[in-house]
């Protein structure tokens, strides 16, 4: 009897060790490319070409950053990390705010109020959740051109107001965690509908808002398709960070590898920093989004 138990324990033990080995290998695969990127951003170009691959950071990072700042002065390379950051942060922060605020508002309208169109409106939101951007992009850019909005940021920011997937999430959250009675209590106390929403409901939605704000921030920061569709004139003063990376990539004249790596690092740095602090929240958020319905 004891033997059976022991062999079972031994087998489980062996399997656990095997699983751990696989997990460690996968961890290395996940981190290694990003690690090499960061390491190479700290090395001088000649060192990268001569010494090849290494995993130990060097001390050239500040120098490389200084180089990237001057890229625009020396050659015809349209790159500026500062302008890129300014544009990307402007678009990302505005779009994130709009997405979260108006998604809460739409979900609130659907959950709290009992009106005839609320059912059909919700069905509509569900149905359009999966329409990909690419499908509408041709008509979108042409239409924005007709409105003289291409080469402006409006088409990149305003559409954030209508985010079906976020509305869906907010609605689920409200249904499960938001006490609707509180709205009536506020009414009795004489609070107007909008001020109830702003002063009472929004603060109660904080956990959901936090998660969705992070996801919206990441999605907007990483968005490369819409900006490159809308900013037709290719004026680099308007470029977002991913466009700056593309601009450096497609330039054959830039032979400094350290600077190239540094440019990529700069484009993902804000995201990585956010992830370092909020990774648990993000990972839990993915899991919640997964169990829809």
């Amino acid at each position, binding site marked *: 009897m004891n033997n059976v138990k022991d062999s079972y324990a031994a087998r489980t033990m062996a399997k656990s060790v095997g699983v751990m080995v696989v997990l460690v290998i996968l961890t290395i695969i996940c981190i290694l490319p990003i690690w090499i990127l960061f390491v190479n951003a700290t090395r001088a170009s000649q060192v990268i070409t001569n010494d090849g691959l290494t995993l130990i950071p060097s001390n050239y990072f500040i120098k490389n950053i200084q180089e990237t700042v001057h890229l625009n002065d020396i050659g015809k390379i349209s790159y500026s990390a500062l302008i890129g950051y300014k544009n990307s942060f402007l678009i990302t922060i505005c779009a994130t705010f709009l997405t979260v605020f108006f998604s809460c508002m739409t979900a609130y309208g659907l959950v709290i109020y009992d*009106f005839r169109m609320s059912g059909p409106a919700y069905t509509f939101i569900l149905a359009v959740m999966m329409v990909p951007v690419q499908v509408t992009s041709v008509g979108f850019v*042409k239409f924005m051109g007709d409105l003289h909005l291409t080469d402006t940021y409006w088409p990149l920011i305003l559409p954030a107001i209508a985010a079906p997937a976020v509305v869906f999430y907010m609605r689920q959250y409200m249904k499960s965690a938001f006490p609707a009675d509180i709205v009536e209590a506020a009414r009795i106390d004489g609070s107007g509908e909008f001020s109830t929403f702003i002063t009472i409901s929004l603060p109660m939605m904080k956990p959901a808002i936090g998660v969705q704000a992070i996801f919206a921030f990441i999605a907007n920061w990483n968005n490369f398709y819409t900006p*490159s569709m809308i900013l037709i004139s290719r004026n680099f003063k308007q470029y977002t960070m991913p466009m700056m990376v593309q601009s450096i990539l497609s330039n054959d004249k830039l032979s400094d590898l350290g600077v190239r790596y540094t440019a990529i690092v700069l484009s993902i740095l804000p995201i990585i920093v956010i992830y370092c602090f909020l990774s648990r929240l993000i990972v839990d958020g993915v899991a919640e989004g997964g169990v829809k319905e």
Partner: protein
Amino acid sequence: MKSSAQNRIRSISYAKYGYYFILPFFIVYFIFQLVPLLNTFRLSVYGNGKTTEDFVGLQNFITLIAGGDSLPLQAQHDNLIRVLGNTLILWFGNFIPQLALSLLLAVWFTDLNLKIKGKTFFKIVMYLPNIVTAASVAALFLMLFSKTEYGPINSWLMDMGLKEPIDFIKGKWQSRGVIMFAQTWMWFGNTMIMLMAAIMGISPSLFEAADIDGANSRQVFTKITLPLLRPMVIYTMITSMIGGLQMWDLPYLYKQGQSWNRATETIAVFIYNHFHVIPQNYGYSAATSVILFFITSILGSFCFAMNADPEAKKKKALIKEAKRQAKLQNKSAFGGF
């Protein structure tokens, strides 16, 4: 007892506020999504000349789907077939390994018998590639796999004894392989977390019962986990397929300089190129978008039906069960006589 204030508030109709609250969403959706969608449909039946004025009916679709008698028209058709094929190949090549890997990991992570330390750490690390800007991933892999400028991978391979550097960027299957790998790398963590959540949604008593009955881990997987996970796997597959049809950042950027790699050009890149790089071809671009729209709609409605299904199924099953119970009770009630 209700106070008079409460009664007064009950008597007011607040329905109109519901409209006020959802109005901004629908106005913006109308202007920035619906009108563009209809505009895409409109553009798809106009010509491909310098202006988009001349109406050509379904000519763009016919050219794209069936080809034409002149060489340039036939080329359009061939191109569409090629990019559709590329999209499917790239999707399969990243979805199959991605699903297999994340299913395996999800089962391991939820198996309580295995003693895995630092689950949260592994989850966080494996999700990390997903949040990195896709454009920067393309840039990074382009540099890592570079042939000309002493790319790290090639220099490492040559240290290991390889004689010639491998052309990971221009080579047909090499470049596809890198993109498939990059996509898998970016998405397996996401799929894994979603599948884990689904597995944890399965009632633990089922696993306990199987454990008591002496089922081994393979039996548990094939007889319990997999069948109950099937809706989630199908859901993941369809969303991934819709995502795969939109694959743009990586295939668009993963190329040498300005030249195109015909083996990795996807349907989204095709739409983009006809719109931006060859500006006279709005019509083809729009028509391809419309085709993409229908493919996505079909896939999406599958997903939609599936999401709605479990509830309806549950209800049906409950009713059936209740009927069966009633029958049994009747039987046992009369059985005594």
